[in-house]
């Protein structure tokens, strides 16, 4: 294997002894933990890529005595299934990561918000939580973890919508600022991280920031768990080093006839064949929460875009006009162009609309519709028209 570098950090063995890394980490000071996290350069694995150590630091600095840790396990981005795999195989690492964060920022309660689609995982997670709580008691760690379930709403993966949902409300995103580090769930300072981010935190505690930094590139430290699907003979979960080009990726995972790769799910970017060589997968190029969908030349990119817009139109919470109306109009618009009811120049108006949504929508959902919309329309214009 030369095209891509495989890593075995996330799914590798925890330790022989249960919750050993957590126990060892309890001997470190909170400052040490946070400094180590910052030095590692770890960026959040949910897709947005904020520096995890800074998030922890900001929350730790808040004077408010009640703070929370939230694990975002509302994995809903089309093409993403890595958190399900992590929660199935190494839940111990996830709970350890949450507890390390809890200690570092001074929180006593953590919530794991799991999407309703994964409720079949609940019995196993609850059993592991019992084991966690026993061990936490053993080394006097005052941090309990509760499981909260979603009920089939993609938008609840957006952090502030997730808080609303935990609070028993409609999953409608809040205005920002204030950011979660100041006012998160129940209005208290909150660290919210992706499932994979918490596992990375545990690995940083185990190996140290210096070792962790040796993997990946300057802008994209560490490994990344990829969910690979579509037209590929090797669909599945792979832990790879960040910083490879799309060409290298396609060489390894494509079926020899790859036309485009959608990096980062429906809210991510479509990379056409002519740009494979020059596009880096990572924060310096196309960022991804792990979703990699491969399309070969038998696929209609119009159908792909139509499917994404169907998705967004349904999953938009409807709170802000740019997203609620924008998603509908983009969908209607491409249908009209396809049917010949509108001239092909109408696509330019739709591109403007999507750019508008990027600026004016309230949250990441509405803002990121333009990513896939413009990258598909720009690169596959003929397919949109004929």
């Amino acid at each position, binding site marked *: 294997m030369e095209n891509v570098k495989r890593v075995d950090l996330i799914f590798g063995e925890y330790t022989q002894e249960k919750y050993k890394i957590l126990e060892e980490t309890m001997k470190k000071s909170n400052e040490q933990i946070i400094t180590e996290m910052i030095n590692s350069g770890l960026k959040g694995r949910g897709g947005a890529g904020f520096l995890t150590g800074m998030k922890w630091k900001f929350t730790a600095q808040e004077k408010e005595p009640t703070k929370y840790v939230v694990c975002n396990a509302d*994995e*809903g*981005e*089309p*093409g*993403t*299934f890595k*958190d*399900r795999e992590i929660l199935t195989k190494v839940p111990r690492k996830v709970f350890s990561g949450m507890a390390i964060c809890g200690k570092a920022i001074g929180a006593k309660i953590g919530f794991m918000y799991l*999407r*309703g*689609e*994964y*409720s*079949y995982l609940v019995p196993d997670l609850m059993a592991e939580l019992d084991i966690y709580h026993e061990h936490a008691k053993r080394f006097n760690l005052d941090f309990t973890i509760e499981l*909260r*379930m*979603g*009920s*089939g*709403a*993609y938008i609840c993966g957006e952090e502030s919508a997730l808080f609303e*949902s*935990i*609070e*028993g*409300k*409609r*999953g*409608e995103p809040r205005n920002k600022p204030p950011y979660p580090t100041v006012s998160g769930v*129940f209005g208290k300072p909150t660290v919210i991280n992706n499932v994979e981010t918490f596992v990375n935190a545990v690995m940083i505690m185990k190996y140290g920031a210096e070792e962790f930094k040796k993997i990946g590139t300057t802008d994209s430290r560490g490994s990344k768990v990829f*969910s*690979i*699907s*579509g*037209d590929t003979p090797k*669909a*599945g*979960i792979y832990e790879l080093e960040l910083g490879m080009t799309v060409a290298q990726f396609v060489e390894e995972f494509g079926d020899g006839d790859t036309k485009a790769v959608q990096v980062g799910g*429906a809210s991510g970017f479509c990379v056409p064949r002519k740009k494979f060589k020059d596009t880096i997968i990572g924060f310096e190029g196309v960022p991804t929460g792990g*979703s990699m*969908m491969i399309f070969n030349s038998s*696929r209609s990119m119009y*159908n*792909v875009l139509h*499917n*994404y817009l*169907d*998705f967004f139109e*349904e*999953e938009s*919470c409807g709170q802000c006009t740019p997203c609620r109306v924008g998603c509908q109009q983009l969908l209607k618009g491409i249908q009209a162009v396809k049917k010949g009811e509108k001239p092909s120049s109408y696509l330019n108006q739709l591109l403007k609309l999507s750019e508008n949504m990027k600026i004016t929508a309230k949250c990441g959902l509405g803002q990121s519709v333009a990513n896939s919309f413009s990258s598909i329309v720009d690169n596959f214009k003929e397919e949109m028209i004929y």
Partner: protein
Amino acid sequence: MPEIKELVKGLADKYGRARESLMPILQGVVLENNFVSDIAMTEIARELDIATAEVYGTATFYSFLDTEPRGKFVIRVCKTITCDMHGKKRVIEKIEDLLKIKMGETTQDKKFTLLTTNCLGWCHQGPVMLVNSTPYPSLDENKVTEIIMEYMSK
């Protein structure tokens, strides 16, 4: 409906009566009754001492909190892109054929409801469907027939 009253009270005793208890209670009602009726919403509102509109607002936001009657087994077929590419349409047609209902409908015996849903997180093994909370990946016409037949005999 004394049963609903009992059910809601039991759930409130278990999950508490704070606003944050609303989601687990709604989820508990769906688990038991397959949907949240108007009566259930009124009852929850009374138990938590909040407006019925608040309960309605939350319940109708979430696609898995059904507010109309559903069958004992709710089938949700993923319609997102990779499942779509790998034959979701044929799977749906097969189910419609087996259950003699159309997408969105419930069988007369109230045993099955057929719905589509967005990405279920099994894109590498699509098409996939959920029957209540159990996922069934790597479907084709044969496999889905076997699964549905098994549920029919339950």
